[in-house]
């Protein structure tokens, strides 16, 4: 699996996800600078990392979505390449129109950093194949703008097409309002594109993919990709 991580000014989980990718694939990913529109042709996976691209000024992800590199990502996505957006990366993908909906301020208005529980809603994707159906995964969130919104038609399409990848849930796997950390529509934590080759999620799988850090529930995402794309 040949992977690249896009680095925007203000990205700050680029190194973290590179560590996870290297641990999975045995080699460091390509770190691709935002100003460069030309992505290598032979990439299997492009990761848009977490952080505060352009300070999250104006709207989270808005400025990064209009960068030169994102034009390349758009082309690659259209060709069916895998694109993974984590946290700020999810916001960038929504702003770029590669995923539907938008991520608004958390309903508490606070930045929240803590472990949450996610129910795996579909294992039918290159990102989630290594999870068991309805598995509950403990993965941290760390964001200010993770409150997913979409109009009714979009919401229905996501549901009907099995494109909701993860929902916030209780440790026992119940999808409740109390388990919803940010007010997201229908407890949505991550969604897939129509072609299922683009995944955006607010939680950070790279932060719990190493036993040293207290858990490995994020690792199956990288393992799934490794298997699907090698």
């Amino acid at each position, binding site marked *: 699996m040949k992977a690249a991580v896009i680095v925007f000014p203000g990205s700050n*989980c680029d190194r973290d996800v590179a560590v996870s990718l290297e641990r999975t694939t045995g080699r460091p990913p390509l770190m691709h600078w935002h100003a460069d529109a030309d992505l290598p042709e032979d990439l299997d996976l492009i990761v848009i990392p977490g952080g505060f691209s352009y300070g999250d000024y104006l709207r989270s992800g808005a400025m990064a979505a209009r960068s030169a590199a994102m034009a390349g990502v758009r082309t690659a996505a259209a060709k069916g390449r895998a694109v993974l957006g984590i946290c700020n990366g999810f916001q960038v993908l929504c702003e770029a129109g590669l995923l539907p909906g938008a991520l608004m301020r958390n309903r508490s208005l606070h930045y929240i*950093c803590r472990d949450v529980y996610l129910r795996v809603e579909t294992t039918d994707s290159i990102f989630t194949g290594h999870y068991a159906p309805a598995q509950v995964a403990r993965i941290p969130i760390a964001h200010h703008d993770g409150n997913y919104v979409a109009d009714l038609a979009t919401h229905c399409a996501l549901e009907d097409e099995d494109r909701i990848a993860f929902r916030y849930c209780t440790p026992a796997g119940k999808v409740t309002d109390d388990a919803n950390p940010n007010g997201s529509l229908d407890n949505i934590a991550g969604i897939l594109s129509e072609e299922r080759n683009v995944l955006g999620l607010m939680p950070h799988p790279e932060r719990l993919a190493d036993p040293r*850090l207290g858990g490995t529930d994020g690792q199956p995402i990288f393992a799934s990709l490794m298997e699907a794309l090698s």
Partner: protein
Amino acid sequence: MTAVEITPAVIAEHGLNAEEYARVLEILGREPNITELGIFSVMWSEHCSYKSSKKWLKTLPTTAPWVIQGPGENAGIVDIGDGLTAVFKMESHNHPSFIEPYQGAATGVGGILRDVFTMGARPVANLNALRFGAPDHPKTRHLIAGVVSGIGGYGNCVGVPTVGGEVNFHPGYNGNILVNAMTVGIAPADRIFYSKASGIGNPVVYVGSKTGRDGIHGATMASAEFNADSEEKRPTVQVGDPFTEKLLIEACLELMDTDVIVAIQDMGAAGLTSSSFEMASKGGLGVELALDTVPMREEGMTPYELMLSESQERMLMVLEPGKEPVAEAIFRKWGLDFAVIGRLTDTGRMVLTWHGDTVADLPIDPLAEAAPEYDRPWEPSPAPAPVDPASVPTVPWTEALVTLMGSPDLASRRWIWEQYDHMVMGDTVQRPGGDAAVVRIHGPAGLTDRGLAMTTDCTPRYGSADPVLGGTQAVVEAWRNLTAVGARPLAITDNMNFGNPEKPRIMGQFVGACQGISAACLALDFPVVSGNVSLYNETEGQAIPPTPTIGGVGVLDDLDRMATVAFKAEGDAILLIGG
């Protein structure tokens, strides 16, 4: 520029007393102009000159075989093995945070980060030690909410995890909250950068954000006692731009990988003035700056304003001759301002020009090194009256426990640390909530199985009862918190927060705390490598409790042997050890 007349009122406004002004006249052999007066006032403020505290700070133990750099640089440095060092310091942003809690706390974090990455270290963790007034004081809620979101807003955006800290509430902080921020960084031992300028003719370069009229008078404000109308004065508050800081970190570290930096210094409080003076003074050189070439954010700025501005996210560097294009390319790539604003000279003087005219000409050494230093009168603090055991009410155990658990000083801090990204960088192996936070050592060569432990500690109640023991206790608690996670304690940074040192009673608290800290450092072989002093924490004559905050750092050689607070298994024995 119209000349401002230097009247006694103007002199007083600049915080110089008659004796100090006489010294100015003596050094210059003439009357200063307003720009020069502004420079003197900044350089001789308590904040920059440590004029009340220097005598006592010199008594702190600062050496050990593993100490690479003690107090006197931007941050302290200790050897952590494998060719790496830990670079750390704590700094206060108390007064600005009281006036504008969000921005005050945010820019405090920004400032301490710069102190650490200036030295070539990648910041790997932030901590914060906070003191607020009584929980039911009308201002407390607003202040704590603002401070916590400011610390988070800045630290989260720059992508440095905030892994620990402490919070206390006491009516003694009603009018003067304390916001002490600490940063820990990791640098290769063979690639550390200092502020000492060298090389006559070398270019002096300005990088980062443009200069605006932010916080002019901030440095002098930070050293003057509060009074009722300081809320009215409302000086131009500095606004932090963490995004620019993140770019500055990356650009500086990238430039540090090339061989072009001779010296580097961040522009903290007192911005361009103290950074340029300090660099030239340490190198025993002179400097010429063309102020009109400084990148400016606003129109009509004057030399006075440029020298006193506290705009954030700026750095001053001396480069190897001819290497300007290398540096410029890196800063442009990161979207930052870059300007060659002057050069080093052999005159020992600072000469400032404005479109070709000389607007200030000052001797550097007398200003920087011969700043006033006071041996302020002090009184030892009276011994606390013994508590009569009979006067202590007896309450049932469970009631006492519930009361303690519910008290603001002991209650869970989860709601605070959950607003801080404490996991970014992917190395937080012990999150907030334990005795000390632990961050895996992840140097330029990659991941290791070793860790840095860190903590901040101070119990103001103890300091109020007995400043000497309070100082000792803070150091000892830091040491215990580090050992409790399995770390070998290495060194501390301190942040000395006190009232008005011109009062012998307060000065006595400061002296006592220094004595107490020294005793503990010596006993534990746990030296002070950096620190900060914040005096005049008084409102209407009411001083804060003496608060010598200690930030401790230790190393774990094997993360598999790290200890955590959680009980692990049913049936395990619980032991109580110690006296």
